[in-house]
C-alpha cells in the first residue's frame, strides 16, 4: 500500500534515527511512503501558545498540500505533528467559513478531508496478524515497557486513538511478536517534552520517575513512538543517572525498531546504533 | 423446446399432479399467442412456444374460473416468474399448490428483453431449455427512464398531458397486470370516491398516479400494461421510475428474492432522503 508521509522537523533533524527506522520498517512491510512535497512545520508547541489562527494555518497548509496531491491518508510519525494536523483537520472539517479563511491565508485550497494517522495506526492497518506472519524472529527475552507519552492518545476527542488513559495497542502488537510487555504505571505520563531546552531539571526528574517505574516493574527496555520522548529518555538518561545518582541502563527503542528487528532487519538499518543507551 | 414442454405438461396432467396447464396457444402466426387452459393430456398439442409468447400468463392464476379447474401448472418465462414471487410474498398464491414450468427465453424482441437479466427461470419446478443470465448494470436497465428524465420538468408534464389525454379509462392496464388482484379496486370504491374516476384529464392523472404507486416496489416490469394499452401509452416509464427508486433507496428488486420484505409495509431507521426539512 502507498500512503502520504509527513516527517515533520524532528525526523529531519535531531531524530533522523526515528525516520530511518520508520522508513526501513515500513518498507519491509511493503508500505510505500510518499513524502508530502514542500511541507512545513506543524507549529508544534510554539504556534498555539502564540496565536490561534497561526496554530491552524501551519498544519492546515500541509493538509492542503496533501489534498492537492490527492492523498487520502498521511502518516505523521511524530505524535506532536499528528496531533496538530488532526486538530487542524477537526476544526476545518467542521467549519466551512474557517476553510475559506485559512485557504486564503495559506494560499492552498484546504477542506480538511485528508485523514492523519500515527505510527501505530499504520501497523494496525497493515494488520498485526500480517506483521506476525512476516516476522522472522520472535522477540523472546524482550520485556518492554510501552510508553505512549502524553500526545499519542490525547486529546482523546481529537486523536480518537485507543483508551486515552490506559492504551494497550503497542502491548498487543509486541506480544504478537513474542515480546512480554510489562504492566506498569507511567505509560501516559509526560516526559517533559519541549522542556528539554527550557527546564532541564524538570525533564530529568520526570525521566527518572519513568525509568525507575519501568525498571521496578521488570522492564528491560522502553518502547516509544515519539521523537521527544526518545530524546528525554534516551539522550538524557546519562544526565538522569548523574543527577539522581542512579544507574539506569534502559535501552529506549522506537516501536518501529522492535518491529523491524522482528522482521529481521539489521539494527544499523534501523538506526539503532545511533541511540545513546545501547545494549552492550 | 416445444416437445419437452408438451411432454412435461402431458406427464403432469396424466399422473394427476395438476388438473390444468396454463400455457400459450396459437392458431396462426399472424395473431399473437393467446392463453390456453389444457385439462386433458391429449390436448397438449395445442401448446406452442415461440418468440411471440410475450404475454405474462401469471394473471390467469388468480382468476376464480381458472382456480375452479383445480391445481394448475403454469408456463412462465424468467421475467414472468418474478410476478409469482411477489404474489407469494403478498400471500395471494400458495406456491406449493402450483407447478411452475419455466421456459428458457432468448428474448421476445421487446425493448425490455435487451436489458433482461432473467432469460433463465430461477424458481421454476421444471425448467425447459437453457439460456444464460448475464448481469445488467442498473443504468442500462433503467436507460429508458433515464433518457426521459433528461427532459426538463415542464416538458415531462406536457408529455404526460398529451399521453393521458388519450387514455380512455378502459382499465386494460389493470386487468392485465399480474399484481392487480384486489377484490375491489380503489376506483370502484365509492363513499368516499377518493379519486376522480371520470375519463377526463384530471381523472386520468388521478388513475395513473394511483396505478403506478400501487405498484411501487412491486412491479416486476413485465410490461403487460403497456402492451395491452389500446392507446399505446408508455406506462412502462412510470413503473420504471418506481422500480429504480426502490432499488436505489432500499436495494429492493421486486420478485428477485422470495425472502425479501415488501418495500412499503417495512422500513429501516437508516432510510436516507435529502428532502425532509
Amino acid at each position, binding site marked *: 500500500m502507498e500512503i502520504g508521509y509527513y516527517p515533520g522537523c524532528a525526523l529531519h533533524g535531531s531524530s533522523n534515527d526515528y525516520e530511518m527506522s520508520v522508513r526501513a520498517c515500513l518498507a519491509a512491510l511493503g508500505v510505500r511512503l510518499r513524502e508530502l512535497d514542500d511541507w512545513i512545520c506543524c507549529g508544534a508547541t510554539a504556534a498555539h501558545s502564540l496565536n490561534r489562527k497561526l496554530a491552524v494555518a501551519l498544519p492546515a497548509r500541509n493538509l492542503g498540500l496533501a489534498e492537492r496531491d490527492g492523498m487520502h491518508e498521511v502518516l505523521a510519525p511524530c505524535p506532536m505533528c499528528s496531533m496538530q494536523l488532526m486538530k487542524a483537520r477537526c476544526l476545518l472539517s467542521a467549519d466551512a467559513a474557517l476553510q475559506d479563511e485559512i485557504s486564503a491565508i495559506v494560499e492552498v485550497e484546504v477542506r480538511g478531508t485528508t485523514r492523519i494517522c500515527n505510527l501505530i495506526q499504520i501497523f494496525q492497518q497493515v494488520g498485526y496478524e500480517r506483521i506476525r506472519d512476516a516476522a522472522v524472529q520472535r522477540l523472546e527475552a524482550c520485556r518492554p515497557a510501552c510508553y505512549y507519552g502524553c500526545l499519542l492518545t490525547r486529546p482523546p476527542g481529537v486523536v480518537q486513538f485507543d*483508551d486515552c488513559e490506559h492504551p494497550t495497542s503497542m502491548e498487543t502488537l509486541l506480544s504478537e511478536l513474542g515480546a512480554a510487555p510489562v504492566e506498569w504505571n507511567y505509560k501516559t505520563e509526560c516526559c517533559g517534552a519541549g522542556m528539554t531546552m527550557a527546564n532541564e531539571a524538570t525533564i530529568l526528574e520526570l525521566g527518572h520517575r519513568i525509568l525507575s517505574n519501568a525498571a521496578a516493574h521488570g522492564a528491560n527496555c522502553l518502547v516509544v513512538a515519539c521523537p521527544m520522548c526518545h530524546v528525554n529518555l534516551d539522550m538524557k538518561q546519562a544526565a538522569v543517572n548523574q543527577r539522581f545518582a542512579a544507574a539506569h541502563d534502559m535501552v529506549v527503542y522506537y516501536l518501529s525498531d522492535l518491529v523491524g528487528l522482528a522482521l529481521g532487519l539489521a539494527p544499523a538499518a534501523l538506526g539503532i546504533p545511533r541511540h545513546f543507551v545501547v545494549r552492550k | 423446446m416445444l416437445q419437452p414442454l408438451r411432454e412435461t405438461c402431458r406427464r403432469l396432467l396424466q399422473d394427476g399432479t395438476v388438473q390444468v396447464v396454463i400455457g400459450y396457444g396459437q392458431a396462426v402466426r399472424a395473431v399473437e399467442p393467446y392463453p390456453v387452459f389444457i385439462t386433458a393430456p391429449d390436448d397438449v398439442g395445442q401448446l406452442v412456444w415461440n418468440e411471440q409468447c410475450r404475454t405474462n400468463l401469471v394473471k390467469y392464476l388468480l382468476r376464480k374460473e381458472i382456480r375452479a379447474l383445480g391445481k394448475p401448472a403454469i408456463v412462465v418465462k424468467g421475467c414472468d416468474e418474478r410476478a409469482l414471487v411477489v404474489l407469494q410474498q403478498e*400471500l395471494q398464491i400458495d406456491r406449493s399448490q402450483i407447478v411452475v414450468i419455466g421456459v428458457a427465453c432468448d428474448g421476445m424482441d421487446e425493448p425490455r428483453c435487451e436489458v433482461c437479466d432473467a432469460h433463465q427461470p430461477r424458481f421454476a419446478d421444471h425448467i425447459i431449455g437453457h439460456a444464460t443470465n448475464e448481469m445488467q448494470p442498473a443504468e442500462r436497465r433503467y436507460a429508458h427512464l433515464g433518457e426521459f428524465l433528461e427532459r426538463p420538468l415542464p416538458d415531462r408534464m406536457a408529455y404526460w398531458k398529451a399521453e393521458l389525454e388519450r387514455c380512455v379509462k378502459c382499465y386494460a392496464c389493470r386487468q392485465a397486470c399480474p399484481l392487480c388482484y384486489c377484490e375491489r379496486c380503489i376506483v370502484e370504491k365509492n363513499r368516499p370516491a377518493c379519486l376522480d374516476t371520470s375519463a377526463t384529464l384530471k381523472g386520468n392523472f388521478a388513475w395513473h398516479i394511483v396505478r403506478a404507486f400501487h405498484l411501487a416496489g412491486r412491479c416486476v416490469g413485465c410490461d403487460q400494461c403497456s402492451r395491452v394499452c389500446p392507446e399505446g401509452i408508455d406506462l412502462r416509464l412510470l413503473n420504471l421510475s418506481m422500480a429504480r427508486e426502490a432499488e436505489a433507496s432500499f436495494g429492493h428488486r421486486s420478485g428477485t428474492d422470495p425472502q425479501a420484505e415488501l418495500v412499503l*409495509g417495512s422500513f429501516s431507521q437508516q432510510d436516507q432522503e435529502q428532502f425532509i426539512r
Partner: protein
Amino acid sequence: MARIGVFTCWCGENIARNVDVQSVAEQAAHLPGVRCSRVHKYMCSDPGQKLIRDTIAAEQLDGVVIASCSPHMHLKTFRKAAEHTGLNPYLVEMANIREHCSWVHPERARATAKAVDLIRVAVAKVRHNRALEPIQVPVTRKALVIGGGVAGIQAALDIADAGVPVTLVEREPSIGGKMAGLSETFPTLDCSQCILTPRMVEVAQHPNITLYTCSEVEQVAGYVGNFQVTIRKRARYIDIDKCTGCGQCWNVCPSKKTPSEFDYGLGTRTAIYAPFPQAVPARPVIDRDACLRLTKGRCGLCVKKCQAGAIRFEDQDELVGENVGAIIVATGYQLYEIGKPGEPGRIAGYGEYGYGRYPDVISSLQFERLVSASGPTGGEIRRPSDGAIPKTVVFISCVGSRDNAKGLSYCSKICCMVNAKHTMLYKHKVHDGQAHVFYMDIRAGGKNYDEFVRRAIEQDGAHYHRGRVSKITQEDGRLIVRGVDTLAGEPLTIAADLVVLAAAMRPAAGVEELAQKVNVSYDEFGFLCESHPKLRPVETNAAGVFVCGACQGPKDIPESVTQASAAAGKVLLMFSRDRLYREPEIAHVQESACAGCFTCRRGCPYHAIDSAEIRDRQGQLVRRVARVNPGLCMGCGTCVALCLSKSIDLEGSSEQQVYAMVESLR
C-alpha cells in the same frame, strides 16, 4: 348529518382581537349542513357549556363544531358537555381558531377568512362523524411481575394484598435482588436484610402469589387484559417441595471453587448451593456447569446425604403458561463494567483505575458485601488481596456516570449517598481509618439526605475532595490514587489500601430482549421508556404493561418502592372493572373487500392485525382477511395508508372524513 351547530368562542380578547367573531359566526351559519351558529365570550366556561348543551337540546343537533382553542386543550371538555345532553361525544369536533389563527395572524381580514376556513373544514368532517361507543375489552384479573427485587416484591405484595392473584418471575434462584446483598441502607443506616427479609418471606407465604425462581419470561402473546405468557423454569435439579433446606448437601459438595455471584466474586460457593442464608425460597440449586455429576458424571455425594431425596439430576427446563391481564416489569439494574469494553466506543473505559487488575480496587456493591455481617469476611472490612484491614480507603464517584467520553451521560443518582454511607460504615468499623471521597458534585436531594452527607463529613470525618481521579497505580502493595482537588486547586495523590469505585447504574442484562417481547420501547442506554415522563410515569406505550424500579432509570430504594406501589395501583385500577374501556377511534377492516395481502399487518406497530378466516356455508375456507384487534389498535392509521384497496379505515380520521375536509377547501 345535517343538523350541525357551530359554536364560536371569543376566548375573551384572545380570539376576538384578531378575528371578527361575529362575521365568522354569520358565515359559518351558511355552511352546508349547519343548523345554527352561536357565539360566546368563553365557550369553555360553565355558561358557555350550558349554551352548547341547551342549543343541542333545543335544535336537536346531531353534530357540533366548537371554534375556539386547540382540541388538545378542550376537546374532552366539550365532548363531555355534549354527552350530558345525550349527544354522542364523538359527534363533536373542534376548529382551532386561537393557536392556529388569532394568535399567529394579526391581520384581521386574513385571520377572519382563515377562521371561516378552519370551521368549514371541521364542519365538513363532522358531517361524516359516526356515533362511537368506547371499546370494551374483557380483563383477566391476574398480574405478572417480572423481577423479584425490592420493586418487584413491593408491586407483587401490593397487588396480592388487594386480593388479586400475582405471578412473580425471578431469574435468580432467590428473590431479593440487589437489595438483599446490601449491608445498611441510607439515610437511616438500618440493616437492609432486616427490612427486606420479612417482605421476601411474605411473598413466599402469600396465598395470592405464585413464585417462579430460576425462571424467565420466554414469550408474551395477546394484549392488554388478555396476555398469554410463557415462562421458562430452568432446571433447578432440586425438588423444592421435598427439600427441607437442611443444608447437608452443600456441606458435602466437593466442588467449592465457584466464585459466589451473591458476593460478587469476593467469596466462593459450592456447586449445590443456596445463594444466601435468607434466600427465598430457602432451597438450594445446582449449578449445572460446576456440578461434577452433571459435567463429568462422577460424584453424587449430595444424593447420598439428602434424606429427603430431593435431588433430581434428571431435572429439565420446563415451560409453563400463564394468562394475565397486566404485566409489571421490574428487572432492576447492573453495574457498569469498569474497564471492560462493552458496546464499542461507548460503554468502555476507566482501564486506568485497574479494576480487575488490582484486587484491592473493588466496586461499591462488592464493598457492601465486605461490610455485611453475612458477607465473606463476616462484616470485618478486610481487603481482598491480603485480608489486611485497610487504614486508608478512597471512594470514587461517577465511575461511568456523567461522562460522555467514557460512557454514560446520565447521573446514576444513588452514588453520592452510597459513598457517604460507605465512609460512615467504614469509620464505624475501622476507627483509626481514614476515608477519602473524590466527587464531581454532591447530589443529596431527598428527605434527610443532605443531613446524612454532612454527618459523614462532619461527624465521621470523611475527607471529601472535589475532583476526578486520573489514575490508580500499584506501588509496593499500596494503591497510589492520583487525582486533583479542584477546590484547593492542586493535584492530589493518596496512598490507599483499598479503593471503592461507585460504578454507574445500567439496566439489567437482557432487558432489551424482554422489552421487545412486551413491545415496550427503551432509550439508548437500555432503560425502559415510560409513557409520559411526568403524567404517566409507570405506564408504557404498550397498553397493560407497566414499569417500576431501576429498569426505568437509576433509582434508590425508596423511589423504587414508591414506583412499584404506583404501578401496582395502576394495575389494580385497571382490574377494578371487569372490562376495559378504550378509545374507539381505531381501524377496522371491510372484510368483503380485503384482498388478504396483509401489508397492513406488516406495517402495524402494535401487532394489532390478525388473520381471520372467511368460510362458506359448508365451512369451507374461502380466503383469509385482515381483522383488527380492538384491544391492541392505537389508531395511528398506518394500515389505512398501506392498504391499496382502502379496505381498512380509521374511525375519527376515515377516508370519508379526510377527503371531505380537503374538498371543503376547494
